């Protein structure tokens, strides 16, 4: 009896393996619709490190779920490997059966924990097949347990043993189908295969070697104009969509979703899956884009935007990277949003709201607001701020950015210059030679406009001699530090929080001696300083350095909520139920401090734009200047 059960297991194993391979071949043919991409096969070797280190960084934030996954997936993989040895290769060793039993127990526990969580599933989780997955996994684990146990202790059991064997085989077949068919039919277990391959062939492979948050340039000369159809994605980008486990962590983190704007990043990724699988996968069973139907109609051959995806969904994104930061499968939502926007902007010219006006201003005046370049430094007229001349040298070059045209933010800029002067920093500006950095153009999809501005700025900066650049605008900072290098501009760029931190640490800023204790306040992390550049500590150290206690909001640092400005969202202004800055102001109110420190001209404008009673919004430099001796 035990002999025949073992053979049945061998048959089942190979059947499963064949089905899995067939499914993988089918799925791979879907990925092949995409463009070619330069990937390294060595990625396969790097997979374990990426799995255990990089993914761990993300999932460790939710330890209970991580434990359940370790048990279920670890147990499952071990069962598969052991079965491959013992039954696939027909070794039929008793001690391997003992190990199998142990691993089955581990997997059973993991699946049990998952099932318990599913009983009170948070709304961000998808239902449908995902809801029943833990039960299927339990079935598989139980089947393995019974079969291996039986084989180990079997011959004595007689008729009962035969019955158990049949039950075990049934369980294995049912549970195993979930594993074997997942990749081919787009069922939940697709994530295991696609997820591992995604780790190996990640479209942003640099992220495993350090921070990587820059948008990649389009080769405009070669006619690249963004993504219109599924075929315009790189194949490994299509693969990345299939890695999604529909955990909804992106959904829970997304400010646009919370504001009721028609964007759910999880659904966005699933829309891409629907587009590439031409709707053959099981229907999506999660939350829709707010205010929209969950069902999509896939029309093969049609542009993605306008068929599976509404343009408003695309334009709601603030590119805050909260989704990317939280995604356990390391999916890069912002890349996809911007790639799709590029097509809509560059090919169709359909930028909604004030977005097209901002882009026209950039084309015509090199500023977002349509200002004359010559007035950018008018606020500094009495500050004796040197205008750098070509050939002259300065230690620090200050780029004020677009905030220089805003009367409110000019106060912050004046404060910054005063502090730098008090600290004896050798700083100068470009005056009318400074153009917009191109941030808004790029995030709105106008890659051509961005590259024009970036190249013009790089050419301008090449005429001057300076050691470092400092800017109070995190968007300018991010563009220059991370996105200009791809276009040939290498600069040593500092955000002003970093410079202030540095000066305070060296006691270069003369502070008032009488340390009247200052009331605590809270700090709003700008996305483009924080999540984009890991600049979490510098601003906090500055506040500490001038003796102010920071009461952090519940969502701060890595989890900070966007102010709503980024990605040109303040210009496209897609309506929702609430406004994102209003929600952020609620976060600020919760701290009870009544004051919030900011470190970005755009956060300043968004938070000060909140109507009704609100906390005072104070720029970092303004706080420091108050403490000057």
């Amino acid at each position, binding site marked *: 009896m035990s002999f025949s059960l073992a053979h049945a297991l061998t048959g089942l194993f190979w059947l499963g393996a064949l089905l899995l391979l067939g499914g993988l071949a089918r799925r791979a043919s879907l990925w092949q619709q995409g463009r070619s991409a330069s990937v390294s096969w060595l990625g396969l070797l790097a997979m374990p490190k990426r799995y255990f280190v990089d993914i761990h960084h993300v999932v460790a934030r939710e330890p209970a779920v991580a434990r359940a996954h370790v048990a279920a997936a670890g147990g499952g993989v071990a069962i598969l490997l052991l079965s491959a040895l013992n039954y696939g290769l027909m070794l039929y060793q008793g001690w391997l059966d003992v190990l199998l039993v142990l691993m089955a127990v581990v997997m059973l526990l993991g699946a049990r924990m998952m099932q318990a969580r599913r009983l009170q599933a948070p709304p961000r989780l998808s239902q449908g097949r995902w809801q029943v997955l833990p039960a299927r996994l339990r079935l598989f684990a139980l089947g393995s347990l019974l079969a291996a146990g039986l084989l180990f202790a079997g011959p004595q059991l007689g008729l009962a043993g035969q019955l158990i064997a049949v039950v075990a085989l049934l369980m294995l077949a049912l549970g195993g189908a979930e594993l074997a068919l997942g990749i081919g039919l787009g069922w939940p277990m697709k994530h295991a295969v696609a997820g591992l391959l995604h780790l190996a062939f990640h479209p942003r492979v640099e992220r495993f070697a350090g921070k990587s948050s820059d948008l990649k340039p389009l080769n405009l000369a070669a006619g690249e104009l963004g993504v219109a159809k599924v075929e315009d994605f790189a194949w490994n980008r299509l693969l990345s969509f299939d890695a999604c486990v529909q955990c909804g962590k992106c959904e829970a983190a997304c400010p646009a979703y919370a504001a009721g704007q028609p964007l759910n990043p999880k659904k966005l990724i699933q829309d891409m899956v629907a587009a590439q699988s031409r709707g053959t996968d099981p229907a999506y069973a999660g939350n829709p884009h707010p205010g929209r139907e969950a069902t999509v109609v896939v029309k093969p051959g049609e542009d993605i935007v306008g068929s599976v995806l509404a343009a408003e969904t695309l334009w709601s994104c603030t590119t805050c990277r909260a989704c990317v930061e939280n995604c356990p499968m390391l999916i890069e939502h912002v890349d996809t949003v911007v790639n799709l926007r590029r097509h809509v902007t560059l090919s169709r*010219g359909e930028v909604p709201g004030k977005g*097209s006006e901002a882009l*026209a201003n950039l084309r015509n*005046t090199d500023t977002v607001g349509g200002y004359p370049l010559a007035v950018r430094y008018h606020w500094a007229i009495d500050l004796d701020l040197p205008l750098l001349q070509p050939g002259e040298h300065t230690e620090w070059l200050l780029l004020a950015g677009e905030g220089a045209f805003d009367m409110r933010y000019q106060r912050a800029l004046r404060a910054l210059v005063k502090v730098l002067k008090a600290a004896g920093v050798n700083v100068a500006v470009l005056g009318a030679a400074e153009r917009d950095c191109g941030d808004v153009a790029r995030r709105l999809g106008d890659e051509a406009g961005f590259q024009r501005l970036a190249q013009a700025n790089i050419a301008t900066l090449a005429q001057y001699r300076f050691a470092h650049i400092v800017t109070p605008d995190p968007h300018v900072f991010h563009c220059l530090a991370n996105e200009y290098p791809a276009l040939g501009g290498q600069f040593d760029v500092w955000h002003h929080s970093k410079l202030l931190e540095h000066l305070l640490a060296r006691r270069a800023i003369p502070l008032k001696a009488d340390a009247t204790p200052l009331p605590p306040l809270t700090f709003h992390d700008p996305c483009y300083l924080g999540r984009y550049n890991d600049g979490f500590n510098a601003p906090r150290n500055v506040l500490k350095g001038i003796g102010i206690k920071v009461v952090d909001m519940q969502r701060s640092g890595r989890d900070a909520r966007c102010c709503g400005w980024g990605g040109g969202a303040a210009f496209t202004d897609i309506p929702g139920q609430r406004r994102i800055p209003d929600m952020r102001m609620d976060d600020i109110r919760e701290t009870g401090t009544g004051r919030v420190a900011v470190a970005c001209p755009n956060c300043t404008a968004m938070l000060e734009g909140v109507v009704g009673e609100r906390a005072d919004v104070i720029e970092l430099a303004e706080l420091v200047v108050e403490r000057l001796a």
Partner: protein
Amino acid sequence: MKIAVLIAPAVHPVSGRPCAGEADLAALALAQRLSSQVDVWYAGAADDAALADYLARGATHIHTLALAAGREVLSPLAEALQDYALVLCGARAGGGDGSGLLPYQLAEQLGRALLPDVLDLSKSDQQWQALQALPKGVRRTLAAKLPLVASVHARAASAVGWSYARLQQGKIQRKAATGAALPQVVLEPARRARALVAASKVSGHARMQGAIAGGEGKSAGIVVKQGDSVEKAQVVLDYLRQHQLVDF
């Protein structure tokens, strides 16, 4: 039906860079609404880069009559446009030396009627109708007959959005042309503007009272205090309709 659209670079009011003029864009948009055969014409000395905005905004092909600077564009244009039953242009160029006279001179030269400040043109039962913009938001509908020159108001619906792909695909075809020298421009000091005299000398508050306080035939205003917001809005809407300030 083949339609000719005249365009010219505008001067950006802030930076002084060449860009597309609003009225010319509106003319382009109107032509594209009316027909799929739209020929876009430019006469003058501007280089291709100055016309780029029009390519990006939907002109697929621009015929340029290249003239030396300071030459008159009227006669070469008139010659090129003779065979078009409908010629559309912006009511005036966006800045620069434009005088706003070209539509009139062109119509005269071609021996046709000029329909100025058009917002929309449509054809029903072989009859053309034009919606014309008048000052203070007043609109009127006119019957029109081809051949015709129409100047399009800057507030008419604008052309499609700016697109890099269209800019790349658009073509500019240059043909050398000759025109007479522009007449000498004579500058003279502006006449002293007549000082505005207020029609009545009462205070603003008193005038507001006069406008809204009812009774004794003193006022044309109505003060609506009764009714819910829908009824009040209806009164406003009726007023706007009566004065042709909205057209729905």
